[in-house]
C-alpha cells in the first residue's frame, strides 16, 4: 500500500496523458461518425437499388467483423500489403488509422439507429407537411428531425457508452491511450516496473467518464420529454 502511494503521482500523470489520447479518439470518432452515419442511413434507404444494396453490404461486413480486425487491417494493410505506408509509423499515424477504423465502424452502427429513427416517424407527419405546402427539406428539418432525435437518443446513448470502452481496442496497434499507459508500468516505465495496479486502475477513468456521459445523455433525454 505504501508503495502504491509512492508510485501514485507518477502513474496518475502518465494515465492522464494516456486518457487524453482516449478522449481524442472518442470525440473524433463521434464527430466523424455522426454525419457519416446519416449519409450511410440515407444510402441504405435509397430507392436506387445498386446504392442501397452496396451500402447494406458494407454495413453487413463492418458490423459482422470484429473492430479489432478492422483496426489491424486499416493500419497494416497499406504498408505491408500495398507497400504504401500511408499512416507513417508515429503516434500521429496510429491515431489517424485508429480514427479511420473507429469512424467507419461506428458510422455503420449509427446508420442503423438513424434508419430506425427516420422510419419510426409516422408517414402521416410527412403527409401533413406535404398537404400544408411544405418542401421535402422543410419537412425533414422542421418536422421529422427532432422526432427522430428523440427516438434515437436512448439507443445512441448505448452506442456512445460502448464507444468509450471500445477505444481500448486501439491498444492493438499500439496507440498510446490509457490502457497502453497503464500497461507500460508492467514492463517498466518512469522508473516503475512490475506494477499491475496501474492497469487495473485505468478502469476508474472509464467508469467516471461514463458516469458523466450517462448524466449528460439522461439530461438530453429529459429535455426532449416535453413532447411525445
Amino acid at each position, binding site marked *: 500500500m505504501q508503495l502504491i502511494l509512492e508510485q501514485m503521482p507518477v502513474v496518475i500523470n502518465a494515465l492522464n496523458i494516456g486518457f487524453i489520447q482516449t478522449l481524442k479518439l472518442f470525440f473524433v470518432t463521434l464527430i466523424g461518425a455522426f454525419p457519416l452515419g446519416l449519409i450511410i442511413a440515407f444510402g441504405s434507404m435509397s430507392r436506387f437499388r445498386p446504392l442501397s444494396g452496396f451500402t447494406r453490404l458494407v454495413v453487413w461486413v463492418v458490423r459482422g467483423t470484429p473492430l479489432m480486425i478492422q483496426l489491424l487491417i486499416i493500419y497494416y494493410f497499406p504498408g505491408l500489403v500495398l507497400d504504401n505506408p500511408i499512416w507513417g509509423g508515429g503516434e500521429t499515424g496510429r491515431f489517424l488509422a485508429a480514427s479511420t477504423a473507429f469512424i467507419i465502424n461506428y458510422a455503420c452502427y449509427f446508420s442503423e439507429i438513424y434508419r430506425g429513427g427516420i422510419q419510426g416517424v409516422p408517414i*402521416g407527419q410527412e*403527409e401533413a407537411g*406535404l398537404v*400544408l405546402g411544405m418542401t421535402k427539406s422543410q419537412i425533414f428539418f422542421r*418536422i421529422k428531425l427532432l*422526432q427522430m432525435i428523440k427516438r434515437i437518443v436512448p439507443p445512441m446513448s448505448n452506442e456512445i457508452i460502448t464507444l468509450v470502452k471500445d477505444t481500448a481496442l486501439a491498444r492493438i496497434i499500439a496507440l498510446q491511450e490509457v490502457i497502453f499507459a497503464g500497461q507500460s508500468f508492467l514492463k517498466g516505465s518512469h522508473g516503475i516496473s512490475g506494477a499491475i495496479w496501474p492497469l487495473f486502475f485505468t478502469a476508474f477513468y472509464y467508469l467516471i467518464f461514463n458516469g458523466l456521459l450517462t448524466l449528460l445523455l439522461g439530461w438530453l433525454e429529459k429535455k426532449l420529454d416535453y*413532447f*411525445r
Partner: protein
Amino acid sequence: MPILEVENLSKTFGRTSVLKKINLSLEQGQALSIIGSSGSGKTTLLRCLNFLETPDAGIIRVNGETLFDAADPATQWESSIRKKRLHFGLVFQSFNLFPQYTALENVMLAKKLLAAERPDFKAKKKEILAEIEAQAADLLTQMGLSNRMTNYPHQLSGGQCQRVAIARALALHPDILCFDEPTSALDPELTGEVLRVIRELADKNTTMIIVTHEMAFARDVADHVIFMDEGMIVEQGRPLEVFENPKEERTRQFLSRFKQG
C-alpha cells in the same frame, strides 16, 4: 363555374382498381358528403385531390384551372405540385399534428414557412409574423381552444387535437377543405365537438368535402351527397333524396345497415 371539377378520375394499386372513372363537381360554398363502406375508394379520392396519390387517369380542375391531367405530364411536375396542393386542405383521420409544436405553433408553422418566401419578408418580418400569430390565435379561438394554445398535442384530447388540425388546415385559406373521416379515431363522446365545428364551417359557406361514417351528420350538413361503392359513384344527389329515397339497390342496402345499427 364550379370551383372543383373532377373528370374520369381513376386509380389502381397494383391490380386493384380503387377509383373507376369518378366524375364530380362542386360549387363554391357547398358542402359535399361522401359516404360508402370501407374500401369503397372515398379516402383514395381525397388523397388524389391533395396530390398524396397520383391518379392513373383523369383531370382535376379548380376554378377552371387544370391542376392535374393524367394525359399531360406538364401538369405533374414535382415543383408545381407543392403550390397546387394549397388549393386543398386536408384534415386527417389521425390528426397528424406535429408533436413537438404547441397548438398555436402547429397552426402557424406552414404559413410562416410560406411567408418566408415572400420578397418583402425580410423588410416586414415582424409585422408579418405578428399577423400570422394573430390569425392563428383567432382560428383556435373559433375552434373553442383559446385556453389551449400553448399546449402540446399530447396534452390535448382527441377532439381538441382534431380541432387544432382543422385550424391548421384553415390557416392556409384552402379553396376546398377536405375531411377524411375526421371523427373515426375519436371516442364517441368526443365526436360531437368536432362535428359542431365542421357544421359551423358549413354554415359559413366553407367549400368542403367530407368523407364520413356519421350518416346523420352527412345528411344534415351536406348540400350534396355521394354514395361510393367499389371505386364508383353509385348514386348522388341532395341529402334528402339519397337518404330517404335512394334509387339504387346498393345504396338502400348500405343505408339499411346504418338504420338498423
